[in-house]
Each structure stands twice: as structure tokens, then as C-alpha cells.
């Protein structure tokens, strides 16, 4: 009877900024390689959702299809939302190539402007369907608005809030509508687009060509931060460093006679 509360919050996320736009995640495949002209409807059906709550971390397990899912985590004391996406093996039995995009929709009024990083350094201003140095005739409404991301992208509602998406690897991203940021996370195509190496992007797990073996599975993370513009850059920059240098774990059996607290020494 009660609609399940789809958002999980940490104390910071709810109180500090007291603005938690319901940034939902949705996948939408596009088709092509370099030049992608998405066709077909973005699947909106959410197959299955599992909500886990605990004192250290709360998670939402989203399953969108049998080859796209995401785990959304909010850690205690966290200032960010972690989205661990898993895509693949991308099916091709329908003879359609697919490029899977993770799109974050928010209630920010960011207009046509968004920002993307350049090799982790300064963030460059981007305006949809526009080039600062010549009059652009828009022939590719989607790929013409995608830019390379190394560390992240963000949108801003001036004076109100900034939504940033930080990536753990080089990806392509765009903002194709106000309040939205989308990032391409994985793809599998069947036809070459005559602009590359005369080979479709059809990697398989065993590295065998066109044997329709299992396509690659990709898994990665995005961190979402929602901050007041005055503090956003500090959070965004330190978080992109933390994303780039995650802690390295090493495991060992407990030395005998050692008690917790002595191990450090």
C-alpha cells in the first residue's frame, strides 16, 4: 500500500544541502559506433529493485534488463552517491548494435550548458548544439554533443546547486536536456562505421571474432555529488582524486599471538 521510498539518504545528503533532487538513473541504448543515432524507445521499465538499509551503507539494487543493472550506494557520513553500474554481455541476437548510456535526470534547471573535464584538469564549458569558434550546423544531434570525460562532468543551476558525475575511467558524456547528464558506459556494434579500423566494436570474452561468444561485461563506478556552487569545486576536485586513488587492500592471516591494535606496530 505504501509506495516504496525509492531514495536512500545519508545524514549529510539530506541535511547539509537540504536539497535532494530525485536524481533517478535510467539506461537507454543507442546504436552505431562513432556516429550514433539512437533509435527506438529508451526502456523505462524497471525490472526489479531491492532496497538494503544498514548503519554503514544503504543500497538500491536496480535491475533494468538482463544485461544492465546498477547498485546505488549511500555510505554513512557520505557527501556523494555511488553508482556501480554493470553492463553486459550485450545481446546481439536481434541483429542490433547497442551503446548503453547511463542517464541521470535531475530537477536542476541547467539549460543547455554543462561542463566536462580535460584530463582531470580544468573543466571546460560546453553548450548544446553550439561551438564557440564557428556556426555549427547540427547534423549529429547526439554524438555532436558528446565530449570526452576523464574525471567527470557537471551541470549547474546558477546560484542554486551543482550536480556532478565523477567517472572512474575515460568515458563519453553529454547533457542532451536541461537537468540531465548522460554517460556512455558500454557498447557492442555489428557494423563498422568506416571511420575506424574496419572492424565493428564487438569484443567478446575469449577474444574470438564474430564467434558470437559471450560479449564483454563492463563494470564501473560513478560518484554523484550535489552541492551548493560555493562548495562544489572543493568537493568535486577532492572526490575525483579519491576516485582516482582508491585505497589498496592487502590481506593476511593474523600473526599468532597478535591482538587487534598491536598489528599496526
Amino acid at each position, binding site marked *: 500500500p505504501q509506495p*516504496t521510498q525509492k531514495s536512500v539518504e545519508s545524514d549529510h545528503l539530506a541535511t547539509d544541502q537540504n536539497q535532494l533532487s530525485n536524481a533517478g538513473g535510467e539506461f537507454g541504448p543507442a546504436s552505431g559506433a*562513432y556516429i550514433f543515432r539512437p533509435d527506438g524507445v529508451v526502456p523505462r521499465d524497471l525490472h*526489479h*529493485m*531491492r532496497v*538494503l*538499509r*544498514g*548503519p*554503514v*551503507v544503504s*543500497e538500491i*539494487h536496480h*535491475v533494468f534488463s538482463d544485461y544492465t*543493472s546498477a*547498485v546505488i550506494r549511500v*555510505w*554513512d*557520513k*557520505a557527501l556523494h552517491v555511488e553508482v*556501480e553500474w*554493470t553492463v553486459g*554481455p550485450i545481446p546481439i541476437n536481434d541483429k542490433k548494435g547497442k551503446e548503453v548510456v547511463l542517464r541521470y535526470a535531475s530537477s536542476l534547471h541547467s539549460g543547455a550548458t554543462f561542463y566536462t573535464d580535460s584530463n582531470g584538469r580544468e573543466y571546460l564549458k560546453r553548450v548544446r548544439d553550439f561551438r564557440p569558434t564557428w556556426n555549427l550546423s547540427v547534423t549529429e544531434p547526439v554524438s555532436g554533443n558528446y565530449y*570526452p570525460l576523464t574525471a567527470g562532468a557537471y551541470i549547474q543551476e546558477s546560484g542554486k546547486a551543482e550536480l556532478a558525475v565523477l567517472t572512474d575511467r575515460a568515458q*563519453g558524456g553529454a547533457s542532451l536536456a536541461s537537468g540531465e547528464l548522460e554517460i556512455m558506459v558500454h*557498447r557492442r556494434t555489428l557494423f563498422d562505421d568506416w571511420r*575506424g*579500423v574496419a*572492424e565493428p*566494436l564487438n*569484443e567478446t*570474452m*575469449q*577474444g574470438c*571474432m564474430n564467434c558470437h561468444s*559471450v560479449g564483454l*561485461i563492463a*563494470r564501473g563506478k560513478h560518484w554523484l555529488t550535489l552541492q551548493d556552487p560555493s562548495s562544489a569545486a572543493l568537493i568535486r576536485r*577532492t572526490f575525483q*582524486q*579519491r576516485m582516482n*586513488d582508491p*585505497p*589498496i*587492500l*592487502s*590481506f*593476511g*592471516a*593474523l*600473526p*599468532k*599471538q*597478535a591482538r*587487534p*591494535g*598491536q*598489528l*599496526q*606496530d
Partner: protein
Amino acid sequence: HPNTDSLEEAVSLLQHHDAITGTEKQHVTDDYHVRLARGWKESQKVFTDALAQMVTADSSAYSDAEEVPQHVPGNRRLLATAPHSTGSAHASAQPGPEAILERPGLTDVTQRSTAGSAGPVLNSNAEKVVVQGAAASAHTAQEVHNTSMSFEDSQEPQLSASDQQAITEQMCSAHSEVSTVCADKDQPVAAPQPWEQEEEGSNQRLRLQQCQLLNASVCEPSVQMSKQGQGFMVVVYNALAWERPTEPVRVPLDTTAGAQWAVTDPDGQAVESQLVPVAQSSQDLQSIMVKEGLLPSLDDAAQDELVFLAHLPPVGYAVYTIQPYSSEHAPAKAAVRATMEDV
């Protein structure tokens, strides 16, 4: 000595725009994978040796109590100087960059809590190196001898033989499948796993192992040790030059034995932790990897993860202990299981 040359070479090749966009030919992709895997494996050796070299001296290394720097809670002391340190017992010279650079990894980075200490203080009053790390650079060759972290016999109370026997029997009875410890005397005891400690006389070699498939919740040491109901340690290393007070750590765990688990921090204080089932996508990933021959079996794949927030010092590590929970071990705090709601 181990180096990262092949990783650097692989990454330099991967600067090509095709590699960044993944639009190269398949066989080129496979070549990139081979080079990266080789480079990764090699740099793990460098990392493990460097970690072995980041030494801590046991507290007796200081001339007297007040010398031991006051720890910011969770701020860990990394201490080492040449065995024949010339520094006076009380000097704690501000490190010139050359002081830090000249012995990478063999430097004390003690973040003193005293006022005004802007950055790490090179504390030159340690009398001895407790640990011999790998000669990661020419500077330290004459100071270190082998590649093991050797613990001097600490003055800590030793477990008596009877206590030890009691713990062993308790563990054997609780986890009959434990092989190494409960093996019959006449049965050859299995060779130590790469993460098990080796006793060499009074010294112990600290043996650590990384897991390359942590993002698929696959990790042989943590899964095998938890399967045997054996406590283990997680050394969490922070490469950034700033403290990370609440860094999430996820440890794949085998919970089939039904044991409860507890986490303690480097000071022996209980840490709040939580058991979370791995996502269906992880389980699917694990099965596909087995089916495709990328994983020998699901033996090292976990269905649960133990998560906690670690407090990490700048350019340093913190050692967390994960042990079966027992109320006697106060102030232990058993990991709670997340509530689950399917929609």
C-alpha cells in the same frame, strides 16, 4: 629489483586514441590486455615490497613514553630510519624534501597532533628498524637486507601454550573443515597459503596478498580465511597525501559457516560494520567468469561483503582486524546484516 617498466610501457601505448575509445582491432585489444595484465602483476610486487618497507617500529623504539607521537585517532605512525640513525634521541627535525626523498618508504611520516605542525614531521629518534623492506632504491640498499617485514619479539604478553591449544581446539570443533590447523599430526600439513604467516624462529614474516577481482567480490584470502572461521587482517593503504577519515572498505566474506564477524581498528577499538549481500549482477558475473574459464571455480567468490568505514592516514596504511565475533572480546561489535526489501 621489481619495477613498473612494463606497466609504464603498456600505459604509454594506451595513450593512443583508439585505446582510449576502445575502437582498435580485436587482436590489438587482446595485446593491450596482455601487456596491462603483465604490468599490473609486476607493479603489485613493487607495491607489496614497498608496503613491507613502510615500517613501524614497535613502541620500544622510542627512548621513553612521551617520545611516542600522540596519535590523531586512526592516524597511523609510519616510522623507520636507518638502523644506525644519527639523529639525537629527541631531535625531530623538520624534514627537508631531500630527507623524505632520499629514503622513499623508509621515512617516518608522523602527523603530530601538536599545534603548528603543518605537515609530516621526520622523526629521527627511532633507534632501530624493525622491518627490513625490499631495496626499492639505491639509497636504501645498504640499510635493508631482505624483503620481509620481520617482527622482533614484542614485549607483549605471549599466549600460553595451553591458551593456544584451547583456541585451536575451540576453532577445530567449531569449524571441522579447517584443514591446516586441525590436520592430524601424521597428515602432511598443506603448504602455507601466500597470505599465511610463516614462523621463522622468533621472527614472523608478514605475508600479504592483494585481490584483483575485488570489484566482482572475488578474493581468495578473505573468502578462504572466513570460510575457515579464521580471523584475518586487512591492510588498507592510502596513496593520497591527505587523511581520509571515512573511507568505505568492502571485504568479500564467506558467511556459510554462519559465524558473526567483528571489525577492530588499528587501536583495537571496535568498528561498526555491516554484512551486505552482493548484487545479483555480481553473482551473474562470477558464474559467467567460471563458465568462460576466467575463474577456476566459485570457491573464492563471495555472496556477502563485510563493509566498514576506514580512517586512513596520508600516504600510509591502517591495519584492520576482521575476526569471528565473540562477546568475550570486548569491546567487539558484531556486524549487522542490512535489512532487505524487494520491490
